[in-house]
């Protein structure tokens, strides 16, 4: 009897799953028919003609069907429980990590012997599994800490605090030796890309994220035009360095001050706006600045941008190949990597300054007022806080860091054009702040690493070429996946990666404030 009932139940659940899958496939059919099945291309006479891609279209619809079917049939709840139990056991995680390592090496060797010409595939596998191993090890250590030192007890708290300090010191140490280590491991040819694209590029966005975090995360003012200040910093440096020949170290603070000035200028009229309105107005400001940069050709050279922007020197010693150059002075052989390394350390220091200043400000009355503003503006006014100047100070300081980052960007590229300051950039920075968890500096840094590192990694994934064919270009899918990831992460964690808030001051002990209580501000 029971077996029969079970049978009926499973048959009907299969039917239901099939029906749901069919519905999904039908929707996918409708959604994808116009733009996937057909493609409008220009022929030789430059007239539009249609191409069809039925196999691709059919594949997508089939994937939708199969995916939904799998989703419906998987015992999700029990899987979740099992996974959670697995993740709690450090030993299992560590052995999984070891298995990953072994598997990665086996796969790498296999790939190498299969296609010895295509070393890229092997490399990609290595990255992939190294990443998985890394994730497992982190998970194992986390699980171990949670079990070993429960949060409830006094010693547990102390140990957790020590571990936190240790982790932070370790991360800082890693950041300090990162370029040297790469240089030592991969040589100047191999490491320059990793220092530049992954080190410098990510650190710029970490700094921008931390700067914007003051405005969005602490003060609760949603600024969608942050890129404007980045642009002000970049163009200030480019124009002043080119026309007056001032050095990077003089122009860096100047660019920050100019950006802060613009922050106040733009901030002043818009601060009484609330919510999405503030977001749209700041977006409009960002666009206006970009359009002015495009159209004021006399000053900015329009779309073409400004090239030949002076590169920073090592406190007066240029990174050139010559008797006065950095390499010659220090008795080294000339190598372009010295400049890249120097730039890496400059942006690292700038980012750390941003973090330090923000951390200090949070514990001062001004920082507490910012957060109070985010929580309840009217209560702030009733307590005698001048909300206008408080908001302006957040705007100005956020803008200042944007300006610093901008002037660094101009100096690093040696070239600025309006292309670099589109709304897309603002969206990326806001996404970093929100995905990281508003207000959390660690979260913002993690989000910047995931988002920027992830999209940069897309450039490297030549392995996809092996799957999808030679003319497959992974870079054009970068932003596509980026947009998708934003949606997915928001649905997965609407409050970002780190949603708890650390109090700025405590009487007995510092307890994290759950995200459920923290407000997001109305700006």
């Amino acid at each position, binding site marked *: 009897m029971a077996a029969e009932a079970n049978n009926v139940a499973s048959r009907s659940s299969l039917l239901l799953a099939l029906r749901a899958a069919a519905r999904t496939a039908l929707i996918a059919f409708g959604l994808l028919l*116009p*733009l996937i099945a057909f493609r*409008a291309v220009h022929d030789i006479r430059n007239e539009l003609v249609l191409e069809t891609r039925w196999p691709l279209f059919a594949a997508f619809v089939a994937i939708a069907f199969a995916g939904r079917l799998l989703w419906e049939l998987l015992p999700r709840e029990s899987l979740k429980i099992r996974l959670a139990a697995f993740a709690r056991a450090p030993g299992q995680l560590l052995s999984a990590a070891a298995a990953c390592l072994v598997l990665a090496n086996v796969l790498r060797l296999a790939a190498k012997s299969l296609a010895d010409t295509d070393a890229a595939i092997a490399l990609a596998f290595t990255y992939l599994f190294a990443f998985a191993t890394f994730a497992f090890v982190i998970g194992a250590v986390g699980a171990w800490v949670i079990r070993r030192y429960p949060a409830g007890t006094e010693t547990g708290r102390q140990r957790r605090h020590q571990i936190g300090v240790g982790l932070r010191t370790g991360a800082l140490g890693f950041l300090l030796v990162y370029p040297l280590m790469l240089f030592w491991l991969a040589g100047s040819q191999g490491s320059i890309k990793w220092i530049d694209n992954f080190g410098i590029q990510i650190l710029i966005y970490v700094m921008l994220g931390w700067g914007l975090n003051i405005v969005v995360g602490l003060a609760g003012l949603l600024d969608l035009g942050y890129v404007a200040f980045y642009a002000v910093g970049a163009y200030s440096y480019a124009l002043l360095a080119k026309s007056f020949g001032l050095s990077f170290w003089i122009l860096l603070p100047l660019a920050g001050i100019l950006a802060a000035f613009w922050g106040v200028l733009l901030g002043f009229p818009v601060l009484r706006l609330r919510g999405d309105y503030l977001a*749209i107005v700041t977006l409009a400001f960002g666009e206006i600045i970009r359009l002015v940069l495009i159209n004021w050709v006399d000053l900015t050279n329009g779309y073409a941008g400004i090239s030949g922007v002076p590169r920073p020197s090592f406190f007066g010693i240029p990174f050139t190949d010559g008797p006065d150059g950095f390499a010659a002075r220090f008795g080294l052989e000339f190598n372009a990597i010295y400049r890249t390394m120097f730039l890496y350390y400059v942006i690292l220091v700038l980012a750390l300054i941003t973090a330090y200043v923000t951390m200090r400000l949070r514990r001062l009355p001004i920082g507490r007022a910012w957060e109070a503003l985010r929580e309840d503006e009217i209560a702030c006014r009733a307590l005698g806080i001048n909300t206008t100047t408080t908001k302006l100070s957040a705007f100005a300081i956020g803008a200042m860091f944007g300006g610093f980052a901008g002037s660094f960007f101009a100096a690093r590229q040696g070239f600025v054009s309006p292309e670099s300051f589109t709304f897309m950039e603002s969206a990326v920075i806001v996404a970093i702040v929100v995905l990281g968890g*508003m207000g959390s500096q660690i979260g913002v840094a993690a989000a910047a690493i995931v988002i920027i590192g992830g999209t940069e990694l897309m450039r490297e994934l030549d392995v996809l070429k092996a799957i999808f064919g030679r003319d497959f270009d992974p870079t054009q899918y970068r*932003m596509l996946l980026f947009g998708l990831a*934003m949606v997915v992460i928001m*649905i997965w964690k609407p409050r970002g990666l780190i949603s708890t808030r650390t109090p700025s001051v405590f009487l007995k002990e510092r307890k994290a404030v759950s995200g459920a209580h923290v407000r997001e501000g109305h700006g």
Partner: protein
Amino acid sequence: MEVFVQQLINGVTLGSIYGLIAIGYTMVFGILGMVNFAHGDVFMVSAFIALIAFLILTSWIGAGLIALALVVVLIVAMAMTALLNWAIERVAYRPLRGSFRLAPLISAIGMSIFLMNFVQVAQGPRNKSIPPLFSEVIVLFTVDGYDVTVSYKQIAIWLTTGVLLLAFWYLVSKTALGRAQRACEQDQKMAALVGINVDRTISITFVIAAALAAVAGTMYLVHYGVVSFADGFTPGVKAFTAAVLGGIGSLPGAVIGGLAIGLIETLWSAYFSSDYKDVAAFSILIVVMIFLPQGLLGRPEVEKV
């Protein structure tokens, strides 16, 4: 004078397109209180759907039946875009309803980025241009050799906009659906308590918004004869400006705002410099937001203490 009249004609045409997109912003804002950032890109996708449908039809039937073909194209674009926007709401916004306020906005920005890049990857980054349609013009009058003209295309756009707006106005003001929508705007919980299916009402709002955006997209294609994957952002922001100018939440306001933005843009281009026409639109947005945040027809918001 003659230039002015000509620009007036062109501006109203452009304004109808903005107005149709603006309704989508205003409806969604009214019911969910969020700026549907992806709406401009939905409009762009609809123009691409119209383009594909147009190419399919013209390769089947002769050029003589272009008018009929366009009606079919319009209907196909409306239906397909409606499906798209329904799916977007279902996947990207509904799970975030009642959550952290910024989450749907970020999700919408992500969706906007996704749609733009999806079209770029699926259809290629080049501008797609179709041969000009209905380019015959009627000369209204001539002053000093300057012809003030109105094209059949423009007349078609005005007529379609007018008819669809009337139908739409009937839908939201005279039917049970419209009442349900207004009830959800006021108080979703209460609406649910009196038996309104809130989820369905919101879905229908997105469907209607997308259908109107698709009308705008088809017209954009017919009017300009060219469309590219990046064409969602700027018209989207301008249409949002129109919605704000008219008073966000107000449907007639969206149409009036759209016309105003269209007129300002064409007149600015004619008399000042077309380089700065977008700067003008954005500046209007800022000025309106600061000095007239409730817009022309919106209700003023009183700060609750």
